[in-house]
């Protein structure tokens, strides 16, 4: 019997510090056994449990796209016991990955549609996965316009800065990068909170879906903007964060109403969320 609790062993291939506060690092992981990589078939929006023997596991969104082969990446915020230890690990160290877990953004439904991606802070990881996935030459024609609003408190706290700059140069994606504030005279993008920038750029709701991930306060103030722009609740998609352990809908921890966020989610439409107790 396949044991869904058993992590695949992986080697840390590289560690990149993403933000100037050094609280976010991206770990590039390579499977020790090539057959494990075959089994780890995922879709953008899914997450995995990162496992460190002696410390435990943490659920983290997969930052890479399935179109990127040979490795997977996770961007990890330093908050607790496991993440603090992970931040001290180095290239070549062995750890574990268990997954892929949860559902994903509704790629079938998104086909032929315009996609508006709204992200804030370090919740940009599965959104990065989604952008890379859609921009892949094999996939780009499956989607309409792609618009991205991505904000952080300051320029130094943005993730994936090189990629953001590269996407800015492309014609097939509308990038709106913003910061809450900056004293950098060379800052060439927007200044303002994500809800305000979304309102200003006013992406059309016509034939569109919005995917929104970020801190609760950002989501709270952006949802009315999207509604005003004409996005119906069934076309606003978000991903929930919950304390999780098993990741496979068995341990009961992430239960909300009749859903287990780890297995039935983490991706829900606003319409689905409106029918659940708001205990998240």
């Amino acid at each position, binding site marked *: 019997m396949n044991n869904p609790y058993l992590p695949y062993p992986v080697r840390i291939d590289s560690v990149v510090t993403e933000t100037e506060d050094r609280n976010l690092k991206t770990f590039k992981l390579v499977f020790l056994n090539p057959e494990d990589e075959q089994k780890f078939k995922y879709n953008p929006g899914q997450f995995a449990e990162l496992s460190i023997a002696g410390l435990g596991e*943490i659920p983290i969104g997969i930052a890479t796209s399935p179109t990127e082969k040979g490795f997977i990446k996770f961007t990890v915020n330093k908050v607790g016991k496991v993440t603090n230890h992970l931040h001290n690990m180095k290239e070549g160290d062995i750890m574990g990955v268990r997954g892929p877990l949860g559902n994903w953004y509704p790629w079938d439904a998104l086909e032929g549609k315009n996609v508006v991606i709204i992200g804030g802070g370090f919740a940009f990881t599965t959104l990065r996965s989604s952008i890379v996935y859609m921009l892949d030459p094999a996939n780009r024609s499956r989607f309409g316009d792609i618009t991205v609003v991505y904000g952080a408190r300051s320029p130094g706290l943005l993730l994936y800065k090189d990629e953001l700059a590269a996407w800015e140069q492309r014609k097939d994606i509308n990038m709106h990068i913003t910061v809450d504030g900056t004293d950098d005279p060379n800052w060439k993008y927007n200044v303002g909170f994500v809800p305000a920038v979304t309102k200003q750029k006013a992406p059309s709701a016509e034939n569109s879906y919005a995917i929104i991930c970020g801190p609760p306060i950002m989501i709270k103030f952006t949802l009315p903007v999207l509604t005003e722009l004409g996005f119906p609740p069934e076309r606003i998609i978000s991903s929930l964060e919950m304390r999780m352990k098993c990741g496979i809908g068995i341990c009961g921890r992430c239960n909300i109403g009749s859903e287990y966020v780890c297995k039935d989610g983490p991706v829900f439409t606003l319409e689905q969320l409106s*029918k659940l107790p708001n205990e998240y």
Partner: protein
Amino acid sequence: MSDIYISRGKFPEIIGQLMARYRVYAPVLKGEYHEFAKIEKTEEADLGYQNTRLSPKGLFHPHAERMFEYSLVKDDPQAGILKEAPKDFSPRVVLGIRPCDAKAFQLDDVNFDTTAYQDPWWVRRRQTTTLIGLACNEPCGTCFCTSLGTGPFDTAGLDVLLVDTGEGYTAQVLTQKGKDVVGITSGWESVSRTVSEKMEGLRKSAEDSLGRQFDFDPIKQKDMLELFNASFWDEVQFACINCGTCTFLCPTCWCFDIQDEVWGDKGDRIRLWDSCMFPLFTFHGSGHNPRSQKLQRVRQRFMHKLKYYPDKYHNGAACVGCGRCVKFCPVNIDIREVVRRMSATCVCPA
């Protein structure tokens, strides 16, 4: 296979025959209470018990279970790689389990054994265990199984049902596993008419004594958010001290935690019973806690059993009416009262 009978005097021989082929678990008196334990001698099995204090869920989902083990030796190439902890899955008989508790395992199965994921330890233990139940001739005052679709003589979760008819036991063989187990035992006779009538009488008096204590069905029809927002939770939650007694004793509370423990240069990944009554259960790394209030946690437990689970699985309530939580709650929060409130015609919003 028609029912069979064995006299009380010969019954220990049956246990002995089972012990020769299976690991046999039975109710054993430890201190003031009974609990299921592996028996080494036939006389350890005490079928005169009422029920165990702790539910027998630990037989399939132990309080603390080693899932994996690993080395943390620096130069060991296998260091940090998790290996399955060895376990004994040899065939096992659980003797004398109550029908409500056996039914509870079925309710738990839909959680542990799904199309997407199978919990390997739960599933293997379920596969290799045969449940020989013992009907309840004298249900407790705190029992309410018949109000939730099971009963003192319910066969649903069992492989064999024994009924204590005074001078002996009748056995109703219910599954292939049951057949296999009974097949290795000998000394059974056919059931006489007197015994059969006596058994029916016992069944009727047990079921009558329980009665129907509330009507669960209206809860199924109710709107989830209406119940969630009802005002009565404030009164229900007041007395609760947020201990984990109800969840730990309950046969259908399966929630668990996963922890790593290190002993020198070796470590284990362990899973442990956890409780939605504890604030840490839902405490995010960010410091946010979606159920930081006692009211939210108390409501979660009852709603999970009585509304979320039935809505998800269309399988009835995640409660078999064993009454352990009623009996052992230190502040007398009675789930029967909560069901009555949830099923009342008018649920006032908070």
